[in-house]
């Protein structure tokens, strides 16, 4: 085994790690932002909106992320240059990069998977607790903000931790559309140094550490909220 390439490529790994963390955290934030209403409308209605949300979750969960990623990158990515108003807009410099397509694909994925998780989470809150809130004159929005949402999250924190670890471990797919995340850097190192295993072991170690951080963070979060019954 040889590890003498590490100092040479250290800065690249730091850059790759930053990309991985950006992709993970931003897609979780954007994805959860949509997952909450997607889960909620399936429980509250209106029916037609719930159906759309359900359909969205089914499609997202039923197709490989790799294909979604490629469809977005090669589909939208080849559509945009042919549209002058996009080429001339402030977004263009970003849209020429692969990262926004990866971010979009991963956000959609988080919205779909976690939308389903949130549906179950909202449903799992005992009706009586929501009824009590209603009986004291809370408005629908106050009930959502103060009771329903925090209660739902409390019920699914452990599930979400597992889901986000899976999302982390899916991020290397972004390297297939030229995003230089940690995995992408690892691949580059393998090609340039002709070392087969060491770079793979090294990035595997990085993912283990990141997984550990997510797990510990959620454990800390779980300990801050009480266990329900």
């Amino acid at each position: 085994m040889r590890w003498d390439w590490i100092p040479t490529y250290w800065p690249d790994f730091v850059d790759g790690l930053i990309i991985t963390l950006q992709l993970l955290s931003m897609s979780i934030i954007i994805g959860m932002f949509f997952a909450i209403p997607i889960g909620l409308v399936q429980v509250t209605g209106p029916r037609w909106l719930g159906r759309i949300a359900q359909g969205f979750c089914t499609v997202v969960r039923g197709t490989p992320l790799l294909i979604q990623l490629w469809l977005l990158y090669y589909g939208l990515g080849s559509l945009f240059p042919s549209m002058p108003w996009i080429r001339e807009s402030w977004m263009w410099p970003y849209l020429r990069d692969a990262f926004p397509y990866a971010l979009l694909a991963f956000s959609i994925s988080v919205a779909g998977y976690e939308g389903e998780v949130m549906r179950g989470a909202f449903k799992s809150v005992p009706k009586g607790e929501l009824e009590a809130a209603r009986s004291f004159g809370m408005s629908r929005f106050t009930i959502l903000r103060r009771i329903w949402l925090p209660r739902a999250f409390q019920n699914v924190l452990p599930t979400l931790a597992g889901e986000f670890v899976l999302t982390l471990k899916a991020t290397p797919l972004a390297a297939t559309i030229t995003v230089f995340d940690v995995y992408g850097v690892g691949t580059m190192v393998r090609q340039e140094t002709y070392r087969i295993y060491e770079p793979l072991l090294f990035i595997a170690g990085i993912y283990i550490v990141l997984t550990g951080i997510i797990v510990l963070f959620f454990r800390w979060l779980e300990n801050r909220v009480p266990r329900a019954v």
Partner: protein
Amino acid sequence: MIDLHRSGKEAVVIENLHKQFDDLKVLKGVSLHANEGDVLSIIGASGSGKSTLLRCINLLEMPTSGDLRVGGEQIEFTEKRGVRVPKHMRQVEKMRSRLGMVFQNFNLWAHMTVLQNVMEVPVHVLKVPKAEARERAEAVLERVGLSDKRDQYPAYLSGGQQQRAAIARALAIEPRVMLFDEPTSALDPELVGEVLKVIQDLANEGRTMILVTHEMKFARDVSNQVLFLHKGLVEEEGTPQQVFYETKSERCKAFVSSIH
């Protein structure tokens, strides 16, 4: 009809209330009149519509027809796509925020401590300043004997303690009327007493209460009005003396015979 009110100021008045779930007629024209200071008990067999009647007061159930006045204020309804709905949701929310409901299954918010449960409505609905709400919450917890449990989560309390916390939560809004739906039915027998004692104290200090209960002796001792519901109709009503000892209806006689 009922001349025994404890004051002249009306608290809750229901007139000719009907409630139907799909095809099932649960309430078939019920009237009820509670003035301030009154303790009104609703008794009757399981399934007779007691809970539904109580829940119509704060509109957890929407009456199919009938009038509702709370604190002298008429609640207004309108029709939306053929369904009866409140005309002003704000009016309903305001009315609800002055009715303290206590449920059979406590329904405390499990993600909040006892103190947070008690402060929640004053702070986030009634907009009482936090410090003041906290002071008030601590006072009501003291009243129900739960000061030492205020930082516990509901899951770690006994049923009796949870119900007393739920009573504290209802008390903290300084309710115009308290509504109890079988507050002791989910409790182990040895825990019933501590909860009834709290309710008894509240009655003694002149609180207006409407109470659905299976505890006949308690209903007799605590109320000034009793209403016996049978299949969605008021079959017998009056003072505890009238309903329990000078019973006219045979069904009611059979039902209350357990306390003789």
